């Protein structure tokens, strides 16, 4: 348990020192927003219906970037090799890394979301708890699969290509549900419709979390 924590903490310290992942995650996310805004400049009245999609594009981009970096950092000096030699369940490495990517993504999402609000002129005080729920579940699912897949990708030559290539199709159900749920929250008032996408997201997250945790041991090994 505290090993999970140790791995998480280490990523946090490195991040705190270099500000590498978070800044680039934020930056890409914000750029997506800004350019979307710019591209949709002429369609101001319809913008609200595009916001959920735009937000999740931004989240996905920044998340993929973050995941890539989180494992690339382990490669630099053969650090992953050091990790593989520790006398601990490799599940601990998985959970530690997943926790780190989850937290980083949530932070990035929060900032991106706030900037999105400003850019798109939205006010959403009442909806925040619901949005939070959707963001947390969606991000959890994302980092559950993402961590496994980036552990696969990091050992290949095509690392930076392979991660999105594997991740996006796999993550699509959760992404679509998340966009749908966000859309319902922002644009429709009928919160009962939330049930379906939220169920799908949750089922997906649990399913992939379990599978990933089980398969992780097989995957980590050079």
């Amino acid at each position, binding site marked *: 348990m*505290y*090993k999970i924590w*140790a*791995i998480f*903490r*280490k990523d946090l*310290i*490195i991040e705190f*020192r*270099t500000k590498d992942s978070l800044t680039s995650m934020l930056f890409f996310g914000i750029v997506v927003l800004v350019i979307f805004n710019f591209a949709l400049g002429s369609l101001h009245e319809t913008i609200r219906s595009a916001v959920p999609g735009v937000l999740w594009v931004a989240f996905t981009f920044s998340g993929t970037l973050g995941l890539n970096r989180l494992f690339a*950092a382990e490669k*630099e*000096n*053969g*650090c992953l*090799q*050091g*990790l*593989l*030699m*520790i*006398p*601990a*369940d490799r599940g601990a490495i998985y959970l530690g890394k997943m926790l780190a990517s989850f937290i980083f993504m949530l932070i990035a999402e929060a900032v991106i979301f706030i900037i999105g609000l400003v850019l798109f002129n939205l006010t959403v005080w009442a909806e925040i708890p619901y949005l939070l729920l959707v963001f947390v579940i969606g991000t959890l699912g994302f980092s559950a699969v993402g961590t496994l897949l980036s552990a696969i990708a990091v050992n290949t030559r095509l690392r930076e290509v392979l991660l999105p290539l594997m991740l996006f199709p796999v993550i699509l159900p959760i992404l679509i549900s998340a966009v749908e749920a966000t859309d319902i929250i922002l644009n429709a008032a009928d919160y009962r419709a939330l049930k379906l996408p939220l169920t799908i997201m949750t089922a997906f997250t649990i399913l992939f979390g379990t599978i990933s945790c089980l398969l992780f041991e097989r995957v980590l*090994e*050079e």
Partner: protein
Amino acid sequence: MIEVRNLAKHFGRFSALRNLNLTVSDGDFISLFGKNGAGKTTLLRILAGLSRPSSGELYIKPSRQAPSRFIRGRIGYLSHDTSLYMDLTALENLRFYARLMDVPANAPALSERMKQVGLSGRERDPVRSFSRGMQQRLAIARAFLHDPDILLLDEPFTGLDSSGGDFFKDYLASARAGGKTCIMAIHDFRLGYEIADRLVVINGGTIALDIPKSSLNYEQFHEKLKHLLA
């Protein structure tokens, strides 16, 4: 005890190791010699459980298979890479690995380690700013934090200055006195002969010579090795 039977490792059509047999008893101190590209690193990585053999059997007491979680805690592997995080300080690196290896991770204990490898005063500098030899020193401190029973060393003296080399020789001597097992890949004939009590030469991916040190004096050994690796 480590036993390797009929080990082979192929990279595509290229065989890095083939038909390799080796039995290492507890307490053996082995120097592993071989030309560049002979397969020393490949063998050590397989022994450390970091690479899967293409065929053959690997047996590390007490488990009859690739090193499991329990075995991993008994192995200390010092590779060509340092396994250090460049953006953490020296102390943070040690603390991180200490936590993962179930070793006391308090600052005094770790500073003591730093002092042993001659890095005291640089605890709070990021590893990125260390010179090559300083990184190697820290890598040594890291790899043996958990006082492993089996030492797998891949050219451990690389980049060390004379005092660093002396320290590490002392460390190995005390490990030997403590009954540890050690396999060390090394190019320096004299140093390798001096440290080991068993001399193994790997050539063309298989064991070409495997003798106790007592059977040859240095000059004879040097002659023989020159001849083998010509």
